[in-house]
């Protein structure tokens, strides 16, 4: 393994000029953001999407959130039994599911603890707002993010695929 470059030693001052000159000719790495954009990694924690129908208002996510930026309100409704003769079910219905992205630390604990797969990470990142209050995403907006949630990607060789 080459420990240091074995090139003939130029005076450092000249070598430095050479490097900057070479770089100048090489072309920039800049991505001109509004005109072109980078695709973040599929796992990137851009924004949290809510699949509302999976949510059972169990409040786990809200409780586990380290800075309590998830606001959930719900109510219970009686529903007819699924099968005939069954017991009458109590269904929790979501009234409000807000995530305050001005507070969120993007730690992903909520996504992880959700027992019903109602929360997903989306790599989407373009939701900046001129007004901080608008960073509070309600459940409709969170639901819209579902469209941008990618399929789970394949894993590297040697990984133990979880039995799903």
């Amino acid at each position, binding site marked *: 393994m080459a420990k240091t470059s074995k090139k003939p030693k130029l005076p*450092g001052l000249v070598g430095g000029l050479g490097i900057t000159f070479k770089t100048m000719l090489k072309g920039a790495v800049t991505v001109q953001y509004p005109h072109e954009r980078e695709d973040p990694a599929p796992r990137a924690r851009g924004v949290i999407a809510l699949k509302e129908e999976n949510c059972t208002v169990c409040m786990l996510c809200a409780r586990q959130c380290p800075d309590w930026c998830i606001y959930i309100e719900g109510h219970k409704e009686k529903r007819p039994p699924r099968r005939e003769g069954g017991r009458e079910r109590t269904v929790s219905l979501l009234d409000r599911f807000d995530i305050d992205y001005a507070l969120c630390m993007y730690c992903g604990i909520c996504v992880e603890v959700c027992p019903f797969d109602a929360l997903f990470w989306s790599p989407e990142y373009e939701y900046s707002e001129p007004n901080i209050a608008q960073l509070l995403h309600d459940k409709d907006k969170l639901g819209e993010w579902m469209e941008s949630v990618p399929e789970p990607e394949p894993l590297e060789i040697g990984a133990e695929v979880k039995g799903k």
Partner: protein
Amino acid sequence: MTDTRTPAPLPEIEVPAEAWRHLADAQVNVELDTGDMILNLGPQHPATHGTLRLVVRLDGERVISADPVIGYMHRGYEKLTEVRTYPQVTTLINRIDWLSSFANEVPFIHGAELLMGIEAPPRAEYIRTILTELSRIATFLLFLGEMGLQVGALTPPFYGFRDREHVLNLIEAVTGGRFHPNFNRIGGLKDDLPWGWINECRNTMKIVFDACNTLEELVAGNEIFEARTRSIGIIPGDIGAAYGVSGSNLRASGVDWDLRRDGKPYLVYNDLDWRVWTHPDGDSWSRYWVRLQETRESARMVVQMLDGLPSGPIMAKVPRIIKVPEGEVWVETENPLGQMGYYVVSKGATGPFRVKIRSASFSNVSILPWLLRGVYVPDIITILAGLYFILGDIDR
């Protein structure tokens, strides 16, 4: 299990006599008072990284005394951990040294695992090690460029940032977070590597080697840079150790002490073929040089680990609700900035009872009053830059 509380012993070292010359020089014409000037560097001074305030008394351009004032960024993490569960704590400690967050998580998770008696599966340990080294590379690349900027070169930081971006992309691709991965779990990792990552990582390591060569020629090899940093801010090994300086800063003073090798074994460093770099001089330049070599060494380690990555699960069997049994543990690791340690006391609840965080930068800057005595104002900057601290790591 061995006694978890005693830290690894420091090796015996010899102090070069000329190190004391520094102190003798510091007796700057005290008998001729030209009127001292008090210069307030910071907390919003561009020369300080973040919000370190340095109250410097000057005689002309010579420093008579320097007083670091810290705490502008204190966020009370030690206290906060007492009201968080173990999984939540990792998101907090991500933010201590925000440039190498992944490395911050490791000792804490490791401590919790020790208390619970769980061992992470080998694949998880390997991936943890890879990510730790990647975060080390990312941190050091930033340093290698930034140091140039502090000495006045405009271009190196851009190279540092440019090539660090590739490493951050790798971390993001695995963990989903560029800066704050929050990827460690007690007993393993959150997820496995995504498909194609290993190849990409190999390519990136080539970029890292290139970047090291470039920066070596552009910065370390530059005569002006040498003139600015050679024999500036000399820390003699024993004084550094006495002040609690650790990590690359101490190794640049000739102390051959690296917790990855000398500490209690953690992660998979013992399986790898690598060496600890030291430099006898102890000046700013040698600190730069040591970090440069360590960056290369880390990249080499990553390549080795990619070759020897075992297959298997990434998570051990862990109860769903994590309660750590009663007990206390001291865990220390070699973070990019130096010795990082957590003293975790558990009373059996879902969260720790008390956590004491030993962060590297806090101890590293504690040598500043000693180190800055007698230097010139421009040297303050190079010394600060050469010590390389992260404010979050000081203030916690």
